[in-house]
């Protein structure tokens, strides 16, 4: 205890700190570790995006600090950014990414709300057990699930989806080698990957809706549909909004689905922005360009989260005590 109180006394000597600010010490380690591993690479990436770095020149120099000073890569100013921003492939990837965010969030919301309403319905017996099973996909490693879905959407005639289509007499679809079917496959997989998280949050929100509100609405003659829109929805709005923002941000950064399915193909048409940056950097060995793309992605996701957190007032709630 004596060390702690000595620290507190020290803190009081710093002009703009008070003794209660010692609690900051609890938060600093986490903040420090996070910044080292996140902000540092960001700064490095900013540096690299102004050079023509590639594996051949970046790791060419000798000594510990040569990588830090970007090896023998030369400074090219804004060239990478100009290249990227005038490249139609970048804009295609940018557009596809936002489209993916929009479509997948609608699908995820509909599915999870539906599932959550079913597994909290009073009429359904064995709700607890069903809820346990329904969140199982969350325990499966993403890389496994995505490879399995690749098998399901296999373009071959024997892929599961094509077999199901076949039993209804429809033609086989070359899912992964045509653009929009592949995009559809991404959406379905993304939906399946993230519904457990959304369902858990929605279910706990639904359970917090006071029973009296429903009873009062029923007494007033509200039907099932109007009760959903006027009682249930307003009470679960906040948690569900929060979950949607989180999964929307996750969709924006989706990497594994396009990468495992068809490397963002066919012919780079469906490269979501993170895949685009990754491929520029590691498949085509253009570290500088890849860095520029990644930074642009970082800026956009940052802005997206910032707007949502501000507009959705997610950071208050607790800060206003």
């Amino acid at each position, binding site marked *: 205890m004596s060390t702690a109180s000595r620290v507190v006394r020290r803190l009081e000597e710093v002009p703009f700190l008070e003794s209660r600010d010692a609690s900051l010490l609890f938060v600093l380690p986490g903040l420090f570790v996070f910044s080292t591993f996140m902000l540092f690479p960001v700064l*490095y990436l900013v540096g690299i995006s102004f050079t023509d770095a590639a594996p051949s020149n970046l790791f060419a120099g000798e000594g510990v600090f040569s990588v830090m000073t970007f090896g023998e890569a030369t400074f090219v100013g804004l060239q990478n950014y100009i290249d990227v921003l005038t490249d139609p492939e970048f804009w295609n990837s940018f557009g596809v990414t936002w489209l993916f965010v929009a479509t997948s969030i609608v699908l995820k919301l509909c599915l999870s709300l539906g599932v959550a309403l079913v597994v909290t319905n009073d009429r359904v*017996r064995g709700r607890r057990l069903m809820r346990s099973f329904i969140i199982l*996909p969350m325990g499966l*490693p993403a890389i496994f699930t995505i490879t399995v879905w690749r*098998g*399901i959407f296999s373009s071959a005639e024997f892929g599961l989806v094509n077999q199901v289509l076949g039993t209804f007499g429809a033609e086989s679809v070359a899912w992964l080698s045509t653009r929009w079917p592949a995009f559809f496959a991404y959406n379905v997989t993304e939906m399946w990957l993230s519904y457990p998280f959304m369902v858990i949050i929605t279910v706990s929100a639904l359970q917090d809706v006071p029973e009296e509100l429903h009873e009062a609405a029923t007494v007033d003659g509200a039907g099932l549909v109007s009760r959903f829109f006027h009682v249930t929805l307003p009470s679960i709005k906040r948690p569900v909004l929060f979950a949607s*923002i989180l999964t929307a941000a996750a969709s924006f*950064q989706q990497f594994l689905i396009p990468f495992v399915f068809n490397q963002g193909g066919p012919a780079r048409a469906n490269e979501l922005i993170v895949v685009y940056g990754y491929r520029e950097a590691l498949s085509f060995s253009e570290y500088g360009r890849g860095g520029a793309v990644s930074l642009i992605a970082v800026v956009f996701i940052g802005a997206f989260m910032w707007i949502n957190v501000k507009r959705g007032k997610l950071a208050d709630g607790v800060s206003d005590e």
Partner: protein
Amino acid sequence: MSLLSGIVRKLTEDAKNILAVPVETARDVTYTVEAVRSGKVSPKEPLKTVGATAGALVMVLALLFPVYWILQAALSGSGASLYSANGISLFPEDPTLQAFVWVLGDIIVPGYSIAFNVPLTDVALVFDTPQVTLLDASTYGIDRPSDFKHFLWNSVTVAIPTVIIAMCLIVPASYALSRREFIFRRKILFLYVLLTQVGGGLGIALLIGLYAIYVQFGVNDSKLALSVYYAATAVPFNTWLLKTYMDGIPVSYEEAAVVDGAPPWRVVTEVIIPLSTAGLATVFIFTFLTGWTEFVVAQTLLGTDNYTLPVGLYSLVDEYSIPWARFSAFALTFATPIMLVYLFAQRYIEGGLSFSGMEG
């Protein structure tokens, strides 16, 4: 310790409940049938219940079909592919556990000799423990089993440090953010919310920078360095989650403890920690899973010798053909423990993710 025994008690309760389900259902059914027969309840009501339950069951089965499909592939033997020419079959034709044997390989507890020197004499007692063969892969016709155990060891040595480091960073921070008022508190909270979802995905965007830095410090093949990285990415989301959970604990409990004369550290160990079990369990599982299932960064940074389970799993996949039976058996062996944890920890996860501090 009380925390642990509490968990054990709840688990046994869960197990009992699950075992009691068929009995309860049977009793319910007979009761309802009686009531309908004697005309106390209109037959419409139970029919509605049965219909709703059946509908819900169909939905659950449809959602979980991919899991079942993969289990079936794993059971269908080593030469199987997922695609059969004669339509979808719901059951494998000749179920075999061969693929699982391939995954597990030999499980042999080697014999040890244990020697005791009897003090003050030259006599030594030597015990030889017998070699215990639990599973010998070669008897099932498998000569080269997978490296599963090697990958498993790597994953464990990555995931456990991840959890320890992350918990040390997260728990004090969430307590301070939830209960104390200090300089920059709101700013840090805002930053964390902003960064909640950024960890994993941006890791890929930042991969080039991360890779260069790791190579420069010579830790690109170090499992510990990887766990520190995972712990770091887990900080914002989990701190925010646990803080929101702690906000739901009424302050009056702490005030009561303070009035009773408890020093601050006892307030934390006796009030806050026991009351936030659900939140802690959720954070524990989430941080564990970060290390257990992450793929892209692990693949980029680790060498073949240090591959973790997800990387090892994906290394089975060829560009054009996937050995489905082995792949699925490998993945299921790897995922089953996590799924079991999910099944039993479900009530904690639901409680932990409820964002109870966030009012509508």
